[in-house]
């Protein structure tokens, strides 16, 4: 019987293939640029983009924009993740609240909340506050269901055991939920990061005078492809690295919580 048993061969082979694909794509890109398969204005060669990436990193204006965007993301993240998790915990524990409010969150998850940005702008004007509020609302509705799932993944007998030893609400939140659900909480953090960034950058593209999103949109509109690609590449590198790190953390914490 053939079982789904992974030997090093499979994983190693997959890694090699992946590397090969990426290298092939990049080489193709570079050659297309150099030998003008495609108009250089549409798809600049990789080397020029790479060059520009370095130039952007050293550019004061770009760094300032990046700093602003990063700050906005961090603030959003710092507000929404704790609040969202606690809301999720409360809803996960309390059956009645979950029945009444749960559907609201379900509904919110699937609606294109970005459509509310014009409303937010009408209400709050254009500025940091509006961006942060928008991104917060966006991310909040993603974090809460994760929090609910985290609490519901906990065996109710563990809860009963803790209560029998005199655990208070705070004890349960701090000593039980957080350590027990650490993998899901890290997952919530990861989603929080992704969606905060998404919301902030979108808000910047839509209506803002500064920030990376604004710059990227501007370069796109003025067909400054090299800068555009360079900035996009930088954003992608940062987001992907953060995502990979958090996924790895999630993986590690999952191993520690081995069920027995």
């Amino acid at each position, binding site marked *: 019987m053939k079982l789904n048993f992974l030997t090093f061969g499979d994983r190693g082979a997959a890694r090699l*293939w992946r590397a090969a694909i990426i290298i092939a794509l990049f080489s193709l890109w570079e050659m297309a640029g150099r030998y003008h398969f495609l108009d250089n204005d549409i798809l600049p060669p990789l080397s020029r983009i790479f060059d520009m990436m370095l130039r952007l990193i050293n550019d004061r204006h770009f760094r300032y924009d990046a700093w602003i965007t990063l700050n906005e993301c961090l603030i959003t993240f710092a507000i929404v993740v704790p609040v969202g998790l606690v809301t999720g915990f409360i809803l996960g524990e309390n059956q009645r609240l979950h029945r009444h409010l749960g559907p609201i969150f379900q509904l919110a998850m699937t609606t294109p*909340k970005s459509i509310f940005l014009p409303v937010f702008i009408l209400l709050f004007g254009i500025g940091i506050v509006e961006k942060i509020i928008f991104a917060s609302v966006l991310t909040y509705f993603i974090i809460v269901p994760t929090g609910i799932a985290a609490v519901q993944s906990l065996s109710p007998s563990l809860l009963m055991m803790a209560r029998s030893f005199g655990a208070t609400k705070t004890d349960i939140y701090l000593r039980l939920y957080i350590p027990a659900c650490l993998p899901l909480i890290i997952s919530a953090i990861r989603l929080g990061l*992704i969606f905060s960034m998404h919301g902030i950058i979108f808000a910047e593209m839509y209506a803002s005078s500064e920030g990376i999103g604004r710059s990227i949109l501007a370069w796109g509109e003025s067909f400054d492809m090299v800068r555009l690609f360079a900035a996009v590449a930088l954003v992608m590198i940062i987001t992907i690295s953060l995502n990979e790190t958090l996924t790895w953390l999630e993986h590690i914490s999952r191993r520690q919580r081995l069920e027995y």
Partner: protein
Amino acid sequence: MMKRLIIIASLVLLWQMAAEWGVLNPLIVGTPLMIAQAAKKNGLIFIMALRVTLFEMICACALAWSSGLIIGMICGANKCRTLCVTPLISAMIAVPLVVLYPVIVAWAGIGPISKIIYGAAAGFFPMTLSVINGVNGIDQRYIVMARAMGASRLTILIDIYARFALPSIMSGLRIGTSLLIIAIIQSEMLSATDGLGFWISYYRSLFAVGDVYFGVILVLCIAAFINQILSYAEQRLRFTMI
């Protein structure tokens, strides 16, 4: 059901009254009356915009669903391909896809095509991941058993892979389509010539509060409608498949 309608109706009434008594500033917050007036005045524009948006969504769905299914099933069926491709797809899901939108616009212009491409991309990655996971999770022993009974490759594909992977596939299609809808609306808001997102932004810049809200309500309606259909389909298929 009745209770919910009553609650909504009373909230709407409360809103209108709050605006009239000056508790809320109607110029900023808007009133239900303004929404109704906007609907009467510009309703046609919105309907035409709705058509465009819907068209973009359907095209993007067709693109994303087909490519997602095909690539997902091809990769999912083979362990090595799965391990190779999955990290790449997960990485793309982590990226705020909005940053790629200006690139797509630079290539494809600000017409519907860029929206379709962008929407399809937004839906493609989560869908493919779901399909891969669904196909992957199939117990290989079923495949062995089918082959031992003389089933052809095609029969195996349809009867076994499709059946077992269907729950994951359906849920992936639903989630991917949600993201696709969100992406298309976003793209219309950023650079477009038509579509609901575009017109909502247009009216926002004119501070025409009633029109903005009306447009938002329309968008919410489409999104809710499509999601309901997909949820319903998922439920029905779940029952017939078992």
